[in-house]
């Protein structure tokens, strides 16, 4: 009896669970020249598709896909968390683009028999790779090369300009207690985050250097004082959804005048949408962050 149970368990482990990561790594797309009905389940995917001139072929996007503005004219199928699969099914896509963090929808979409293209966008190099991949799958190789060349050029330009400068310690935050005159519950960019890579390319170093295992670290005033960053960049894209403005929110830092960033007057609050989206507008993000970290360098206007 015991042997049987152990045997069954072993089979389960070998064939059942063992297969899951394998499924996760492969994309089920067979290269096929022209996709005519594309659904994007991520804002970055949508931006890449439109930038490659595939806007007409896109039939469905998420609620968060606000750029380019035309994207919101497409059918909205919810978000990756609350995807309306019935709607997806009715749109009958021949390609669905989603991020590799969105495993739930992926399995369901494959069960429904759709082609799924997974994109990884954790690093700047991933974004370049993602653009190249969509370009080659959808017969837009030339456009893809043009966009990726522009990104690479921008990276080189920034790196050559910041080469001889010091590497300030930069803290990037995404959310915190806002407008209440204190600094608490600060979500900062972890060591495996997209912004960790952006900071590094833009000529700085991430002020947070805690455990890698914590994907979105949260710190309090004590933690911020301890890290004592030279520059603080707050990416608060959802600030527009509150009744606050950047001028009010930045006042919260008056409670921590001990910080170097405060004394250097290098605390920035950015609310633009593109900063959080790892798509073709990554050049703007890099530019913005590099200029904030290195105000001493002469940048082209």
């Amino acid at each position, binding site marked *: 009896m015991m042997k049987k149970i152990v045997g069954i368990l072993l089979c389960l482990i070998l064939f059942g669970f063992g297969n899951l990561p394998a499924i996760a790594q492969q994309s089920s797309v067979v290269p096929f020249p022209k996709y005519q009905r594309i659904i994007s389940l991520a804002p970055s995917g949508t931006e890449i598709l439109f930038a490659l001139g595939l806007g007409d072929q896109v039939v469905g996007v998420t609620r968060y896909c606000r750029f380019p503005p035309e994207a919101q004219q497409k059918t909205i199928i919810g978000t990756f968390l*609350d995807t309306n699969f019935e709607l997806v099914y009715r749109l009958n896509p021949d390609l669905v683009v989603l991020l590799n963090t969105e495993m739930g929808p992926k399995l369901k979409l494959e069960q429904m028999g759709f082609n799924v293209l997974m994109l990884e966008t954790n690093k700047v190099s991933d974004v370049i790779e993602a653009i190249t991949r969509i370009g080659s799958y959808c017969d837009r190789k030339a456009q893809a090369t043009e966009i990726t060349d522009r990104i690479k050029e921008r990276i080189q330009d920034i790196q050559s300009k910041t080469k001889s400068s010091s590497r300030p310690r930069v803290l990037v935050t*995404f*959310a915190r*207690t*806002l*407008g*209440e*005159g*204190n*600094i*608490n*519950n600060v*979500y900062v960019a972890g060591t495996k985050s997209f912004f960790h890579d952006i900071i590094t390319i833009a000529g700085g170093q991430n002020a*947070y250097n*805690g*455990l890698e295992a*914590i994907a*979105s*670290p*949260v*710190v*309090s*005033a*004590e*933690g*911020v*004082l*301890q*890290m*004592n960053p030279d520059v603080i960049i707050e990416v608060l*894209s*959802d600030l527009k*959804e*509150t*009744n*606050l403005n950047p001028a*009010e929110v930045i006042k919260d830092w008056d*409670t*921590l*005048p*001990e*910080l170097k960033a405060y004394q250097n007057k290098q605390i920035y609050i950015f609310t633009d949408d593109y900063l959080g989206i790892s798509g073709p507008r990554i050049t703007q993000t890099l530019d913005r962050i590099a200029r904030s970290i290195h105000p001493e360098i002469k940048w082209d206007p």
Partner: protein
Amino acid sequence: MKIIVLDKKNKLAILLILLLGSLVVIFTSPFAGSKLISLNNIFSLEPGSSDFKIFWVIRIPRVLLAYMVGAILALSGMVFQAVFRNPLVCPFTLGVSSGASFGAAIYIALGFSFTLLGISGISFFSFLGAVFAIAIVWYLSRMKQGSSVAKMLLAGIAVSFFFLSIIMFIQFISGVIQSLRISRWLMGGIYAFGYDTLIQASIIAFLGLFIIWYFSHDLNLFTTGEELAISRGVDVKLTVTILFFLISIMIGGIVAICGPIGFVGIIAPHICRLWIGPDHRYLTPATFLFGGLFLALCDTLARSLLPPTEIPVGVITAILGGPFFLWLLHAKFSDSSISL
């Protein structure tokens, strides 16, 4: 299993140990954290330096706040367990915490941001939510004649579930960042900057201790049974109503300050009951001291283990307290020591 009956001297000794333990925790904890600050340094710190701020403005009030919050949570759990004669009741069973969380979720989802008379907007909203939940539970349990105590308990649980589903719905419709902030709030956490919140919490804590001590004789009668309490001249309905309201409002205030912190309120009274016995004259101060000591210790670990981040304190309370309680239950369990 043998039941050891403690005499008065032993009980006073336990209280003394708890008091000394509390003093040790309170005086040593501020030195620990994302970075150790040494004793020699604290008086030579310059007022403008980061360490000065961390030590005097953040850590000291925070340790004391954690102590007060732990004390109140544990005390309220003790009272509710006695009044409802049920070992599974905690300060949050009657819907206070879910009501407070509901208030906080609305505040975050609607994107409000304000402070009112030095009290942050989110605290204000969650306190309103708590009071709202208390009012509903009280009203429901009074509508018809009957055993108000059991009815109150059931009404509280139903109200809790109702509010929690609304919170889930709010999270479902709000943006990613809002959703993240709501879940973070639901984890609870101690945070102090300066001494304002500490003063608020201390007033609540000592007021609570005084009120509960005043009722400790009634609580002893309660635990032996409602009928006996009535026959000894306790106005059960009035006492239950007073305790329910006062303590719920206290808990509402505490949850508004630091979110729902689990485990302390349900387990700390049991640990003390197993240790010092069910007599509320001794149990009340023991629970106050132990709850405070325990949460102050947990919060220190929460902010020291993975610097510069902080682990939600509720995670530490259950991981640390769970096995300890199970050990105690296994080693000292007997029906008469666990029964209330």
